[in-house]
C-alpha cells in the first residue's frame, strides 16, 4: 500500500473517447498506455514516476478487465528484462523507472534488449530526475540511448504532447524493431493539465496468449553469430526505418516564420521555457506563436540530418537549447553542418550554461544574449537597450539570517533513534567508517547526526564498505534500507560479505516499506497485500545466505538496546559479518494507516490510549543536547518570557506522534529529567476512572498541603 491512495485518479483511467482527462502528467501517461493497448507494465518506483506505479497498483481491477499484466519489479534491471516479452511476441510492453539511476541499473538488460530488437512495441518511460528537487547525481539518459541505440523521445511538457508521444513511441518501436525511451522531467511528471481521452484498448495479444503459444527465434538471441548481425541490422535496417518514420509522421515540429536569419533548435521538453523566454522578450504570444523560427525535437535520438540542415538553410545562426551535459546534440549538429559545409553558425552552450538546469532565468539570459548578438532587429528598443536597469532589491543580508532547510527525518521517524544510538556509540568507541546507502536513512549525513561517508548506489551500502576488509582496530559500519536490501543488497552486500569473510557491521534499516519512494510494499512488508506476497523476514534471508551473527530489533525506539547491540556488533570476537536488522514501521505510513482507525475507535466509544511527549520548561535548561541527538521536527525550541533566561528551552509541539525517541534518548544519554510522556486515555474504563479519582484525591491532598505552606508565584505565559 503506497503512501498516497489513488482511488480517485483510478476512476479517470476508465474514461472513454471524447471525455476530458484532468490531472498530473504521470497519470496522463498511465492513461495513454491503456489507450495504446499495452499488454504489460513493469517498473521500479522512484520520484518522479512513483505515481505511475502507485496508480496502477491501485487499478488492478481495471487492468484485470483489460487483460493487462502489471508488476512491481524487484529492480530496474528486472523491469528492463521483463521487456523480453516483446522480443518474439507482438505484445506492447512498458517499463518505467527513475533516471539516470534506474537506467544505470537496467543497462545490462537494455543493451541485450536493443541488440536483439523487439517485435511488439517496447516503451521505456524514464522520469528524468534532474535539476531542482533532484535527489541523485546529475547525468543524462541521452547517453544510454546513444550507446545501446534506443530511440529517445523528449516531448513538449504538456499532457497532449506527452500522451501523443506514448502513442508515437509504440508505433516507432514496432516500425523499427527497436525499444523506445520516453523521457519526462520532474516538473512535467507533476504538471497539472488536461487532454481529450480515447477509449482504452485491449492488447492485440495478451501475455497469456503468448504463454500458451510460445515462439522462439535464434536470430533474436544475443549470442554470436547473431550478435554481429544485430549490430549491422541496427545501422542498415533499424536506423533508416526510424528516420523514415520520424520524417513521415512529422514527429519533430518546425514552427514560426519560414524566413529569418536565426533559429532555435530545442529539445521538446524545453519548449515551455523557451516560449516563456520569448514571451518575456516580446517574441511569442500566450499560445506559443513565435517570431523566431523553432525546430522542436520531440525525438532527440536519432537526429534527422536533412530536417536539421533544411532548418539551417539561409540562416546565419542557430541556437541549440539542450539541457545537461555532455552536449550530445550540439556535437552532432556541428558535425552535420561541418560535413554539409554549411555557413550557418552553431551556438548553444556558449550562450546557455554548459551544466545545470535551464531555469527561467538561464533561458532568458541565454536567448536574449543570442538574439541581441545575432538578430537585434527582432528585439524592441527597450530590451535591446534598456534604460537604467532597475536593480533588483538587495536582499543579500538575508543569507545571514535565513537558515538552510535540507530534507530530514519526519516526525516520529523510526530511523532517528538508530542514528541517536550510533551517536552514543561514537562517543564511547570513537568515529567509524560508515558507508551509507540510498533511502531516507541517508538523511543521517546531515545535522544533527553527521553520520555516513559515501553513497554508491541503491542497496550498495555494504558493498561499498567491502574494501575495508582487513584486520584493524575498528570495524566498518555499512547501512542499507529494506528497499535497497531487496533491490540487490542481499546478494551484493550480505552474500558478498559472507563469501569474502568480511568482519564489518551491516545495519539493515527495515521500515516495512520502500519508504523514500512513497511507501510501496516490498517482500518484507508487514501489511497483507492482496496482489503481492509479503511478510518475508529480512533476517531469514540473511541467515539463509550464511550470516551467523544476526540481531533483530523490533522497536528501534529502544535507544539503549539499539546502542548496546551496536556496541556488541563492533566489539564481539565473532568472525564474519555482523548484521543488525532494525525494524519499526515508517511513521508517515503508520500515521496514515492508524489515524483514521484511532479516530473511529474514539468515536465508537472504545478505550484508546494516545501517547504524547512534553518538556517541563522549568526543568529544561536550554542546552539542546536532546535536539543534537534527535532533530525531530516536533522537538523544537521556544523563548520563555522570563528575563532570567538567556536561551530558549526545548518544547514539543502538537505534531508529536508519541514515538518516544526524545524520552529514550534523554534516558540513554543521561541528559536530563525534562521530558515526560503523557498518555491520554479516551473513553476510559471504569477501573481507569476509579484509579484516577483515587490517585487524584491523594495527590491533590498532598499538593494542597504543600501549596498552603509556600509562596506560589504565578507563571508568566510563554512569549508568542
Amino acid at each position, binding site marked *: 500500500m503506497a503512501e498516497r491512495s489513488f482511488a480517485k485518479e483510478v476512476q479517470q483511467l476508465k474514461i472513454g473517447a471524447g471525455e476530458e482527462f484532468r490531472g498530473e502528467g504521470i497519470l496522463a501517461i498511465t492513461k495513454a498506455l491503456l489507450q495504446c493497448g499495452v499488454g504489460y507494465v513493469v517498473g521500479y518506483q522512484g520520484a518522479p514516476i512513483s505515481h505511475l506505479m502507485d496508480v496502477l497498483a491501485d487499478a488492478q481491477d481495471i487492468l484485470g478487465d483489460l487483460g493487462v499484466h502489471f508488476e512491481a519489479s524487484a529492480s530496474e534491471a528486472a523491469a528492463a528484462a521483463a521487456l523480453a516479452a516483446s522480443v518474439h511476441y507482438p505484445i506492447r510492453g512498458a517499463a518505467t523507472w527513475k533516471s539516470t539511476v534506474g537506467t544505470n541499473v537496467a543497462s545490462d538488460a537494455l543493451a541485450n534488449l536493443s541488440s536483439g530488437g523487439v517485435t511488439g512495441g517496447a516503451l521505456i518511460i524514464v522520469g528524468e530526475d534532474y535539476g531542482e528537487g*533532484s535527489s541523485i547525481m546529475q547525468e543524462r539518459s541521452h547517453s544510454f540511448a546513444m550507446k545501446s541505440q534506443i530511440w529517445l523521445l523528449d516531448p513538449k511538457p504538456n499532457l497532449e504532447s506527452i500522451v501523443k508521444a506514448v502513442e508515437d513511441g509504440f508505433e516507432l518501436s514496432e516500425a523499427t524493431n527497436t525499444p523506445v525511451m520516453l523521457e519526462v522531467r520532474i516538473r512535467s511528471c507533476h504538471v497539472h493539465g488536461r487532454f481529450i481521452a480515447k477509449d482504452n484498448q485491449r492488447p492485440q495479444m495478451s501475455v497469456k496468449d503468448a504463454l500458451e503459444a510460445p515462439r522462439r527465434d535464434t536470430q533474436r538471441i544475443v549470442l554470436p553469430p547473431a550478435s554481429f548481425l544485430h549490430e549491422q541490422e541496427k545501422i542498415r535496417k533499424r536506423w533508416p526505418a526510424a528516420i523514415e518514420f520520424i520524417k513521415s509522421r512529422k514527429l519533430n515540429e518546425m514552427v514560426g516564420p519560414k524566413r529569418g536569419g536565426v533559429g532555435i533548435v530545442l529539445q521538446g521538453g524545453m519548449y515551455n521555457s523557451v516560449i516563456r523566454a520569448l514571451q518575456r522578450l516580446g517574441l511569442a504570444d500566450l499560445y506559443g506563436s513565435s517570431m523566431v523560427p523553432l525546430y522542436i525535437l520531440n525525438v532527440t535520438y536519432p537526429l534527422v540530418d536533412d530536417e536539421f540542415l533544411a532548418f539551417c538553410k539561409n540562416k546565419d545562426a542557430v541556437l541549440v537549447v539542450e539541457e545537461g551535459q555532455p552536449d550530445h546534440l550540439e556535437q552532432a549538429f556541428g558535425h552535420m553542418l561541418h560535413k554539409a559545409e554549411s555557413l550557418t553558425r552553431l551556438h548553444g552552450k556558449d550562450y546557455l550554461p554548459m551544466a545545470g538546469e535551464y531555469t527561467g532565468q538561464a533561458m532568458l539570459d541565454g536567448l536574449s544574449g543570442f538574439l541581441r548578438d545575432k538578430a537585434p532587429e527582432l528585439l524592441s528598443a527597450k530590451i535591446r537597450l534598456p534604460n537604467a536597469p532597475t536593480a533588483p532589491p538587495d536582499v543579500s543580508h538575508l543569507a545571514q539570517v535565513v537558515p538552510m532547510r535540507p530534507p530530514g527525518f519526519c516526525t516520529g521517524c523510526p530511523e532517528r533513534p538508530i542514528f541517536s544510538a550510533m551517536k552514543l556509540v561514537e562517543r564511547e568507541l570513537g568515529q567509524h567508517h560508515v558507508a551509507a546507502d540510498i533511502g531516507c536513512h541517508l538523511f543521517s549525513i546531515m545535522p544533527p547526526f553527521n553520520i555516513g561517508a559515501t553513497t554508491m548506489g541503491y542497496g550498495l551500502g555494504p558493498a561499498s564498505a567491502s574494501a575495508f576488509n582487513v584486520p584493524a582496530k575498528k570495524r566498518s559500519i555499512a547501512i542499507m534500507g529494506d528497499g535497497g536490501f531487496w533491490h540487490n543488497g542481499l546478494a551484493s552486500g550480505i552474500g558478498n560479505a559472507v563469501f569474502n569473510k568480511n568482519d564489518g557491521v551491516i545495519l539493515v534499516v527495515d521500515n516495512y516499506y520502500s519508504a523514500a519512494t512513497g511507501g510501496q510494499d516490498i517482500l518484507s512488508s508487514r501489511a497483507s497485500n492482496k496482489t503481492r506476497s509479503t511478510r518475508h523476514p529480512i533476517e531469514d534471508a540473511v541467515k539463509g545466505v550464511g550470516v551467523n551473527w544476526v540481531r533483530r530489533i523490533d522497536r528501534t525506539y529502544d535507544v539503549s538496546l539499539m546502542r548496546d547491540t551496536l556496541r556488541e556488533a563492533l566489539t564481539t570476537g565473532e568472525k564474519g559479518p555482523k548484521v543488525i536488522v532494525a525494524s519499526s514501521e515508517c511513521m508517515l505510513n503508520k500515521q496514515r494507516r492508524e489515524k483514521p482507525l484511532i479516530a473511529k475507535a474514539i468515536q465508537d466509544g472504545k478505550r484508546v490510549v494516545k501517547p504524547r511527549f512534553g518538556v517541563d520548561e522549568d526543568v529544561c*535548561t536550554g542546552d539542546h543536547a536532546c535536539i543534537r541527538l534527535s532533530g525531530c521536527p516536533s522537538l523544537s525550541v521556544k523563548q520563555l518570557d522570563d528575563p532570567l533566561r538567556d536561551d530558549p528551552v526545548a518544547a514539543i509541539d502538537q505534531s508529536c506522534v508519541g514515538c518516544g525517541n526524545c524520552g529514550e534518548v534523554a*534516558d540513554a544519554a543521561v*541528559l536530563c529529567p525534562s521530558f515526560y510522556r503523557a498518555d491520554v486515555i479516551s473513553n476510559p474504563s471504569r477501573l481507569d476512572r476509579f484509579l484516577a479519582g483515587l490517585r487524584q484525591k491523594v495527590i491533590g491532598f498532598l499538593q494542597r498541603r504543600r501549596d498552603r505552606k509556600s509562596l506560589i508565584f504565578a507563571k508568566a505565559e510563554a512569549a*508568542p
Partner: protein
Amino acid sequence: MNMQLPRQNQIIKLAILAVGGQGGGVVSDWIVHLAETNGWYAQATSVPGVAQRTGATIYYVEMVPDRGRTPVLALMPSPGDVDIVIAAELMEAGRAMMRGLVTPERTTLIASSHRAYAVSEKVASGNGIADAGKVIETARKTARRFVAADLEAIAVKNGSVISASLFGALAAADVLPFTPESFEETIKSGGKGIAASLRAFREAYDAALAPVPEPAGAEPVSAAPVPTGPEKLTRQYRELIARIDGELPAEARDMAHAGLAKVIAFQDLAYGEEYLGRLVRISALDHDLGGDGKDRALTREAAKYIANAMAYDDVIRVARIKTQSERFHRVRDEVRVRDEQVLKITEFMHPRMEEVCGMLPARLGRFIEVRPRLFKALDRIVNRGRHVRTDKVSWFATLYVLGGLSRLRRRLLRHQVEQGHLERWLGETERVARLNYDLGVEILRCRRLIKGYSDTHARGLTRYDRVLSALPMLEQRQDGADWLRRLRDAALKDEDGTALAGALKTVESL
C-alpha cells in the same frame, strides 16, 4: 504576425514556498480548482520527492482566462516574474526573497509569520534562533504588498491545517479575480474536515486584513510578581520587595524582582534575603566603580545570574517542580486533556551516584566520593533509567518527599559545592570589576555557560572554566570584555568545543 504583447501580462503567476509535510500541495490543488471553476485555465507543478520530507519545497501555479485554446505556460517561477508568493513559514518568505521571486513592482507576498525552526537553529547550545524581524523588515521593502499573520496558530486553533488559513489569507489579499465565496466553495468541494477548514479560512481572512504586527520585542517587566500564600510569608515577602525598591538602583529592580521570586521558589524567604544581601553588596561596589554611567550593568547582571546560580538544578528542585499542582495543570493544558479523559504521566529519570551523593549530608557525601570503589559499587545500583509514573501515588509520594528535602538542603553536599562555586565566581567578579568594569560584567554573564544535568552540566562547568582561564590575559586590556564575550559565544556554538578552542588560540595570540 500579430503579436499581442500585453497578453502575457494576463498570466497570473503564483509560487508557494512551504516546508515539506505542511501540505503545500493542498493549497496548490485548491488554487487550480478555484481557477478552473471560474473559467480560467490553470497549470500547476511541483518538485516533490524526497525533498518533501521536512525540507524546503516549492509549488508553482500559472493561470490565464480560458479561451478554448491551450496556452503555453512555464513550469517554474522566474526571478522578477511572479505576481503572488505564498510562504507557509516566515523563513520560507525570506527564501523566496533570496531567490528573487519577490519584487517591488509586482509581487504580493503572503506569509505566515510563525516559525518552524530549522535544525541548525535548534542545535545551538545557546540561542540559535534566526532574527524574524529582519525578514519582516525586508519583506516590507521588497514586496509590492506584504500580508502576514500567524496562520499556523489560526489553523491549529480551529482544528485545521495551514492550507486552510493560507487560502484565507490569499482570499483576503484580493489578488486573484475570484470572490471569497468562490474560495469557500472550493474548500467545500473536497475531502475531509470541511467545517474546521472553513473556520480557519474565515479567521485567516480577517487576520490577513489587519496590518502586519511588529515582531514581538522583549516586554518590559513592570511590577514585582505578587505571590499567593500564608499571610505571614506574603508580609515578609513584601518587606524584601521594599528592600529592593529602597536599596537597589532602578535599573536593576525588575531583574531583582524576578530573581527574588526564583530563589524563594527554590528554597525559602531566608534564601531570598541571602540573595538580596549579595546583591546589595555588588550594588555598593557598582556605585563606587561609577556604574551609574554604565546603566548599572554590574548590578543588573548580578541580579540575574546570582539568582540563576543560587537556584541551581538539583534533584530536590526537579522533584518539587514535577509534583507541583500548577505543573499538573500545565501538562493537562499542553496535551489538551479533556475532562472526560484520563491522563497518565511518565517521567524519564536517570539518576547517577553523583546526584545521590549530592543529596547526602556533606560529610557522608564526600566520604563516598573519595572512595572510587565504593562509589562505583553504589553507582551500579543507582545508575539506570527509571520511568517514573507521577500520576501514581507511590512514585508521586517518593518525589514529594524528595521535594520536601529542601528544608535540609543547606546541609547537603551539592549545596556546599554550589555555594563554593558561587562565592569564587562573585569574588572573581568583584576583583576584576575593580580593574575593568566591563570585564567584570562579562564574568557575571559567563554563568550562562553552566546549565543542564549530569554530563551536560559537567561539560558546562568545563566550558566555563576554559572561558575564564583567559582572564589573566584579558584583565589589562581595554577590549577585554569584548574578547570574553566572544569566547562565551564560541563556547555556546558547538558541543565538542572546536569553536572555543579556536577562539582561545586567538586570545592567546593577542
